């Protein structure tokens, strides 16, 4: 599925949810079901800095597509990570770099984009894109 379609799908899922409690509940469930990152990556090297909660992120390139795994010690952050992985994983670096993430505002998570929230959504997105840039550069050098 195209990134844009996954975003639409998520927006529709959230539209079916009521007030914040249901949205948080949904994120918490996503967080609980997020496959954990391999223990080998749960260290400082893979830690995203600048978050109140800790987020670890890894990305592998297989057949031109990037596959992300992540973990966080805060469950809401983990739920958000799960959404981001669902959007980006299995896509090419170009697709990941050229995506507008309008869905975040549409599902009412815009507050998480504020730097004062320091929950790492912004850092998480940046880090996912850095991986895409790095893999793109690597592919071009080959």
């Amino acid at each position: 599925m195209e990134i844009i379609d996954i975003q639409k799908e998520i927006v529709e899922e959230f539209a079916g949810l009521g007030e914040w409690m249901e949205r948080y509940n949904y994120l918490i469930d996503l967080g609980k079901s997020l496959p954990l990152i391999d223990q080998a990556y749960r260290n400082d090297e893979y830690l995203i800095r600048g978050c109140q909660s800790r987020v670890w992120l890894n990305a592998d390139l297989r057949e031109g597509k990037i596959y992300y795994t992540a973990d966080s010690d805060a469950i809401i952050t983990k739920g958000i990570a799960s959404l981001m992985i669902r959007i980006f994983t299995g896509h090419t670096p170009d697709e990941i770099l050229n995506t507008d993430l309008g869905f975040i505002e549409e599902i009412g998570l815009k507050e998480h984009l504020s730097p004062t929230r320091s929950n790492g959504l912004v850092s998480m997105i940046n880090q996912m894109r850095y991986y895409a840039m790095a893999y793109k550069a690597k592919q071009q050098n080959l």
Partner: protein
Amino acid sequence: MNDFPIEQIRKDFPILDQLVYGKPLAYLDNGATTQKPLRMIEAVNRLHREQNASVHRSVSFLSDKITQAYEEARTTVQKFIGASKSLQIIFTSGTTGSINLVAFSFGEGILEPGDEIIISTMEHHSNIVPWQMVCERHGARLRIIPITDEGDLDLDAYQNLFSDRTRMVAVTHVSNVLGTINPVKEIVQIAHSHRVPILLDGAQGVQHEPVNVVDLDCDFYVFSGHKIYGPTGIGILYGKEEWLERLPPYQGGGDMIDRVTFEKTTYNGLPFKFEAGTTNFIGAIGLAESLNYLTGIGLDKIIRYEHELRDYATQKLSGIKQLRMYGTSAEKAAIFSFVLEGIHPFDTGMIIDKFGVAVRTGTHCTMPLMQRFGIEGTVRASLCLYNTTDEIDRLHDALNSVIDLMA
């Protein structure tokens, strides 16, 4: 609690009367910053509208008037903390500004390689980093007072930290995380018995405890305006006159000079020697207004009420069996740091925010203290004179909802 005019007091703070996410605001983040009484807001407004002019500089009617108000504000602060002279009160930008001033000037004037400065495990970064910087510049080093599991300073260990190279002690009056009210009088006496001066960080002390600097006998006492219902960007440095005389100036600029030539500048006397440039004079007058507001209610009454809130909250929160409290000293202010078992403080804070309950989560600028307890952070509820038992109940209920939601 019946004789405390809480309803009137809440009306004095206009910001409290609002809904967030459709719920009445329960502002329990007073350790970060306190809200402002209408009387102060109006005074600052009036100063800008009617009296603004440069202090200590011009000959105009307005300048004269505002200079007078500024110096009266100094006297108000002096009386509030029981200092003997108004020239011992330096207006700064805040606690951080005050500590940086003392650390820098002390470093320039006194410190030599191999010297030692004693601080404690429970210090805010503002009372760690300036000393660390000055140690790096002058080849000195920090010695750290350990704390007990309850969050009390280990006074025996403190005694043993002194050596013939100890030059300064810098300790907080009240811990911004644990709420511990340190036995500062005793701590000062111990420092003085070793002939070492001491700075007390009153950022969380002066609004929750009676402060008399002469009685405490501390050499420096510092605090922020915005944490005691005053404006932001104004703070206080109290110092003993002999120390303030002895320390070299911190920043150079206007008003702090006596006479300037390109070859040599001589400095102004106290307190102006440490007030370079145009100070935040409206902030200073605003702060005095807030202090007068507190004096009007009666500090003893405020402290008694806050202690009642503390006891109520301690009892109420102890009913949540998944709640682990950090800071259980017998002597503590109404500051509560805790973690809900298995739930990240960030998740807790995010969710209770939706119930209108404002707290702070994270390390609270005390990373070494978090390391001491082996935790990543806490949720902190910090109460003050306008909080109510009803708000504590709402915190309690919101925390139970978090537990349900995360189960």
